């Protein structure tokens, strides 16, 4: 036995070690970047990548530990670890996409990469939060940095516009979320998730107007972050205007974090009043899927199309949430597959993109298969996965969510989702049409000069296939993650909270 009570210390600090690493890394990058020219930021990017990797390793280290830290502010469970890992992966992919992109577009590297890291910090906090304040702060940390990231190409009018739109609506939405937190606080007397869960589980709370309105307002707030219809209007514009790596980061990282918090609050915290919010989510999910897919059909800009596609996918995820707690693992699994697929798709978009937004139109993909068969092949895999074609990750995810939803009797919603999948196939396949069956399009710059991007695309494609073909371990860990949060909420409040 060590003379020091190492166990206790470890227990307090180890869980937030990844967070600490990220924070420190952000500052280091910032300082290191002071004298780096904007066009030569690759070094900073690699530093960022390394620190993310370190955080990834540390996060792996805390996998399997359970409990709470900092008086319940931080939850230590597989749920947070799962999301942290996926968020870190998303961040690493984003960095890999950014390496050349940032340099080419003369994005200020120090700020860019440190903001990215700060953003990751916020996301990880959201995933690991144990109370509503940390969720709120994490969300703000993430959002504020992403506002900036969206507008970091300062000379680019679209980038500016994306930033201001996102910022205004984000702040607007913050008001609603906070209002919801206030009301829930009023109804339950606490802002810690564990006690909230217990308070609600004891019953007699189901018709408290404060609680109900609070749930409603929080739904609105989270609905904005996950881009659910009708709170989605920002997404297409922001996705289009933001630098593409940031778009990817938003489409994946922000969505992951938002869902992490959303799930933890609703499917864990508010689980016992599920009847009070599942109906709303039913409608929102249906609207989100349908709206996203319908508008995506008529898009000509690939980033905008992917934005609507992301909205539609949020709809499928919300369908899972609407179907209740059993779908939790399915949502997590879906998010995993979704992350890789979307990251891959955006990587390909970046590969085609050049200054002046050449390569952002779907028509720019024409004839890609003839010129760059591998790139087109990878894109095909991502698109097929997004469309839910087996045996790719996207299919198994949909399958899982629909299956669980059906098991809980949500036949109508699943049929809506399925018909939406058909619509979505139309526009995903339209890109395939452009790539494989048409002529023209833009030339792609030498891929060999961009090894990081190629690696990102390759890894994403590999993961998309692997997660789909042999989903068992991922399903298992998703289930484990979800139930660790879901189960821990009850256990923790009994054991740890005064």
């Amino acid at each position: 036995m060590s003379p020091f009570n190492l166990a206790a210390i470890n227990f307090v600090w180890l869980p937030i070690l990844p967070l600490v690493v990220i924070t420190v890394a952000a500052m280091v990058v910032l300082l290191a970047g002071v004298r780096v020219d904007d066009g030569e930021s690759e070094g900073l990017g690699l530093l960022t990548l390394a620190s993310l990797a370190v955080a990834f390793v540390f996060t792996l280290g805390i996998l399997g530990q359970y409990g709470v830290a900092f008086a319940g502010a931080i939850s230590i469970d597989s749920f947070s670890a799962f999301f942290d890992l996926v968020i870190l992966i998303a961040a690493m992919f984003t960095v890999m996409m950014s390496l050349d992109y940032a340099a080419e577009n003369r994005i200020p590297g120090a700020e860019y990469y440190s903001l990215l890291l700060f953003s990751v910090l916020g996301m990880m906090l959201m995933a690991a939060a144990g109370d509503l304040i940390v969720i709120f702060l994490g969300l703000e940390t993430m959002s504020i940095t992403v506002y900036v990231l969206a507008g970091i190409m300062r000379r680019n009018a679209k980038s500016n516009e994306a930033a201001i739109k996102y910022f205004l609506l984000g702040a607007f939405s913050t008001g609603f979320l906070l209002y919801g937190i206030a009301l829930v606080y009023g109804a339950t007397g606490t802002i810690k998730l564990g006690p909230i869960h217990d308070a609600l589980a004891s019953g007699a709370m189901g018709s408290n107007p404060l609680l109900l309105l609070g749930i409603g307002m929080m739904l609105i707030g989270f609905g904005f972050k996950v881009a659910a219809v009708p709170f989605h209007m920002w997404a297409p514009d922001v996705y289009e205007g933001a630098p593409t790596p940031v778009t990817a980061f938003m489409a994946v990282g922000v969505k992951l974090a938002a869902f992490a918090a959303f799930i933890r609050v609703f499917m864990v915290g508010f689980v016992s009043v599920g009847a009070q919010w599942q109906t709303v989510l039913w409608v929102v999910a249906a609207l989100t899927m349908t709206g996203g897919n319908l508008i995506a059909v008529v898009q000509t800009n690939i980033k905008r199309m992917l934005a609507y596609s992301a909205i539609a996918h949020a709809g499928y995820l919300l369908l899972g949430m609407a179907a209740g707690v059993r779908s939790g693992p399915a949502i997590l699994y879906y998010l995993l597959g979704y992350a890789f697929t979307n990251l891959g798709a955006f990587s390909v978009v970046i590969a085609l993109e050049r200054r002046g937004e050449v390569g952002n139109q779907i028509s720019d993909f024409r004839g890609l298969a003839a010129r760059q068969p591998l790139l087109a092949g990878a894109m095909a895999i991502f698109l097929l996965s997004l469309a839910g074609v087996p045996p790719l990750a996207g299919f198994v995810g949909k399958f899982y969510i629909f299956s669980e939803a059906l098991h809980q009797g949500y036949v109508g919603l699943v049929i809506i989702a399925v018909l939406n999948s058909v619509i979505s196939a139309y526009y995903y396949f339209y890109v395939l049409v452009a790539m494989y069956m048409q002529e023209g399009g833009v030339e792609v710059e030498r891929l060999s000069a961009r090894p990081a991007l190629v690696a990102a695309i390759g890894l994403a494609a590999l993961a998309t296939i692997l997660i789909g073909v042999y989903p068992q371990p991922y399903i298992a860990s998703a289930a484990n993650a979800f139930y660790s949060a879901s189960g821990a909420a009850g256990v923790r409040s009994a054991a740890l909270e005064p």
Partner: protein
Amino acid sequence: MNGGLLTALIFLPLIGALFILMQSEERAIWNSAFIFSLLPLALSFYVLAQFNPHVAEYQLAEQYDWIPAFGITYHIGIDGISLFLVLLTTILITLSLLYSGGGDIEKRPREFCFFMLVLETGLLGALLSVDLFLFYIFWEVMLIPMYFLIGIWGHGRKIYAAVKFVLFTMVGSLLMLVAILYLVHQAHVHFNRTSFDLPLLYQVPLTVTESRWLFAAFALAFAIKVPMWPVHTWLPDAHTNAPTAGSVILAGVMLKMGTYGFLRFAIPLFPTVAVEAIPLFMALAIIGIIYGALVAMVQPDLKRLIAYSSVSHLGFVMLGIFALNPEGIDGAIYQMLNHGVSTGGLFLLVGMLYMRRHTREISEFGGLWKRVPVYAAIFMVVMLSSIGLPGLNGFVGEFLIMLGAFLRIRLAAVFAVLGVILGALYMLWTYERVMFGPITRAVNETIRDLTGREIAVMVPVIALMLLMGLFPRPLISRIEPSVTAMLARVNVAQARLEHERQPNRLAALLPARHTPNREPEMAAAAR
């Protein structure tokens, strides 16, 4: 020692596909593609040799855990229903590749071979899957290569056709997915076990309403694939615009997936509903037969004409299936094979013509016999097979189907024979316009007859037509045990239905049986 035989059969083409991706020289691509299609062909004949004709159950089965979380296993097997469809697939893929290497495919041969072989994996997988999830995966997997085949190497409105093909199919198959999930859920409710294994799912007790809806979902998916009237309109576009090999596989094998689906899934899973639905499906099948033939008759485009003739022929198959007696179903399965051979052959022939003249308009031809006697003779035989001339394969199937239909609903067979008449009418008329008469277009004067390679492609087709026409017994005797086993379920359901309708008469007719009426119990359980 059969371990892995079917797995090898399914995945050999996939390995070949990946291998081809690494080739760059065109000749090497074609050669390796051909060799990699020969391997499964050989293997499928080995499977045929290993097949025990007296067993109704799945043979050479393999089952491994795949996704235990969902109760999904990698469960494959072969039985009489799928046996010859597997052979048909391997044969047609080989012939298509042999044919396509002869100049039909002018661009991107590597991708073409890749997609053809992936398609083969999808087709074989769908035929051999016993697990519904596995089946669904292969079912969708075969969609994608075909989409590319049509879209990249097609002609005319190829993109429209490809997208239409995918969307039509997806509407059906996704609703089927919902039905599968629901069914599995019910299995979970009743057996407390999540499983996609078909034999288990056969036993799931369902309420009448449930099974009707589920059947409808399955039936829609398969009906689109078949395609039955009125969800057939993707077919003419897909066929017409696809490259020759695509049309061959599409008509030869892929459409059979729909009818196969009825036999393997829709009917045995929901036998009661199937029996109830006999009049509806027979009516649709007959509409398809007559409608397809009449519309085929007035098509100006050769491939479009053949496409509509497929609607007509597949109508026969559906008629046989929904006769729900061994004659009808044997005939239907046989007709599936026939249609694969004869329509596949027709598409190959039209492809050869297209390669020479770059048009498929019937009015562009005329008097070809004089210039291309060999071609004309082969065309004649294939056409006769298609219109069901006795002695060739088509007749055996049509006869059994109509006999089965007659035994079920007499009027149905009366209408079906109209299809036989019309079939002769439009096929012969087409032949007449293409081959007979004087040569009206100067370009046709210089058209050249078949090359050795093309003859090599067609000889096996002709041989199959003769063999299957004269010696159907070895095939049907292998098909039949599985059909009988499937029909046993239907018969029980039918007896139950009759029992409900006319309790007194049935009690008098039948000896005491132990098939208790489970509907009330189920209703109680549902409550």
